[in-house]
């Protein structure tokens, strides 16, 4: 009985921490969707690109903070350029155009590393050790703890930004109605760029953390696939939803791996989140915190 409880709590704690790291990536997706209505199918590739930047910087023994700074800088610059060159001309076009553009971009980004720096897996070593930290049977690797801290910090920052700061209110106004926002003196395009830059920043940190857990190669982009169950569950345009959705997906995945895998031989971890996503779409299509269309009656 005691063992059972310990096993379950260990699964839950590890699921929560992994889940928060999904949230970090999902935050990037949500920010862009919330502010610009664009669905970024290349979110996973953003993470991968940031992982490569960090890995390449760390290879010649650069300080860790410099490598992280470089990853953030590259991703912000990349997001700005993407918004300016690819997405701005698509403003006002059908949403499918933006979706296709990001899918194409994702494919291009996945093709980039093998032809430039080679396809082998690279390490991102953050010099924070590998000895699990924790008490009793519940312990977590340091990088996961770092991931938890970074995610919670960004969650707090974004919550403050959207609810309290004038820029955040302006960004929500842009999300609500672009034309009216423009007439309020808000430079809508600048806010689009800002949203993309924020998404670039969280992707960069996601890339560093996930890269150091899984190693950096083209497959790192696959973590982006987990974004979809997370955001569908939490609500496509909710910062809090990204965090809660991530936690749920992480725990479900971890419990599935712990309890169902022994009977079926493994692999449930990868599809359990999608089952959850489909159930969510059936019963709560806007997700837990997603914006409903406001309707007066």
């Amino acid at each position, binding site marked *: 009985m005691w063992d059972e409880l310990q096993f379950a709590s260990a699964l839950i704690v590890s699921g929560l921490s992994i889940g928060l790291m999904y949230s970090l990536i999902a935050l990037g997706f949500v920010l862009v969707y919330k502010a610009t209505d664009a669905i970024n199918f290349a979110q996973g590739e953003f993470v991968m690109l940031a992982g490569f930047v960090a890995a390449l910087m760390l290879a010649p023994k650069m300080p860790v903070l410099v490598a992280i700074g470089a990853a953030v800088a590259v991703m912000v610059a990349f997001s700005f350029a993407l918004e300016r060159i690819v997405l701005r001309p698509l403003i006002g076009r059908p949403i499918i155009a933006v979706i296709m553009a990001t899918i194409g971009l994702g494919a291009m980004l996945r093709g980039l590393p093998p032809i430039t720096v080679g396809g082998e897996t690279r390490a991102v070593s953050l010099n924070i050790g590998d000895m699990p930290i924790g008490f009793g049977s519940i312990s977590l690797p340091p990088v996961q703890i770092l991931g938890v801290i970074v995610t919670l910090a960004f969650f707090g920052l974004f919550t403050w930004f959207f609810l309290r700061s004038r820029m955040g*209110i*302006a960004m929500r*106004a842009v999300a609500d109605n672009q*034309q*009216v*926002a*423009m007439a309020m*003196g808000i430079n809508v395009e600048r806010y689009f760029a800002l949203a993309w830059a924020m998404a670039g920043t969280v992707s960069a940190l996601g890339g560093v953390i996930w890269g150091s857990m899984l190693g950096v190669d083209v497959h790192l982009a696959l973590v982006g696939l987990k974004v979809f169950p997370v955001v569908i569950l939490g609500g496509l345009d909710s910062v809090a939803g990204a965090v809660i959705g991530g936690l749920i997906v992480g725990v479900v995945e971890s419990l599935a791996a712990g309890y169902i895998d022994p009977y079926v031989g493994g692999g449930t971890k990868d599809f359990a989140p999608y089952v959850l996503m489909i159930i969510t779409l059936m019963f709560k299509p806007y997700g837990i915190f997603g914006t409903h269309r406001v309707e*007066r009656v």
Partner: protein
Amino acid sequence: MLSINNIEVVYDNVILVLKGVSLEVKSGSITTLLGANGAGKTTTLKAVSGVLRSERGEVTKGSITFGARRIDGMRAFDVTRLGIAQVFEGRRVFEHLTTEENLVAGAHTVRRVSKVRDGIERVYAYFPVLKNRREQLSGYLSGGEQQMLAIGRALMSSPKVMLLDEPSLGLAPMLVEEIFGIVRRLVQQEQVSVLLVEQNAAMALEVADHGYVMENGRIVLEGSVASLRDNSDVREFYLGLNEVGSRKSYRDVKHYKRRKRWLS
């Protein structure tokens, strides 16, 4: 103060919507623009505020000047910065923001936070109902409250000219009366000039100083509101009164339609 000189507006490079519109908004006055659906009233306002561009429309001829500056072709947020605020048709509050957040968003061009706070208090002074609703999502306000919020939000940028698009749309007559009363007060106390687009011609001619009548993308009639009220065409087609001045019976409408005296 604001003058529109013979502008043409084309949508999508082909559709000619305004065919040479000229009008003038004098400082400290209310100018009204009347006309039926599709006459081009809203397009005229959008040409001034610059939001036309986001709808693939363009001023292809003529000019719009504000003070000494030419503003046609300027981007919407720059026009707002110069002191022209637009209140959209159908209120268009930011539904997912609270009342107060709507006002904060309206003050985007104001730099100092203390000034924003003063502005919010000023709006609450004009529209006390909004103060009780400050924390509520504006999407759930009543139609009248939303219209007040839309006007208050435009006021936040301390505009010199306010473009008011159909503020009476879908509101009860008593509310319309109240809102127009406040608009009148704004003109007197805040030195705002108003360009008012209305379908409710009777109300508009009561509150405004000067009026224009638009049809098919052209101005067909212009004058002081007193002269417009006396104009037999305006009486017949916009106020629904016949020659004698009594209300027209709908029984007669189909039998006989008097021809308008202007060419459109």
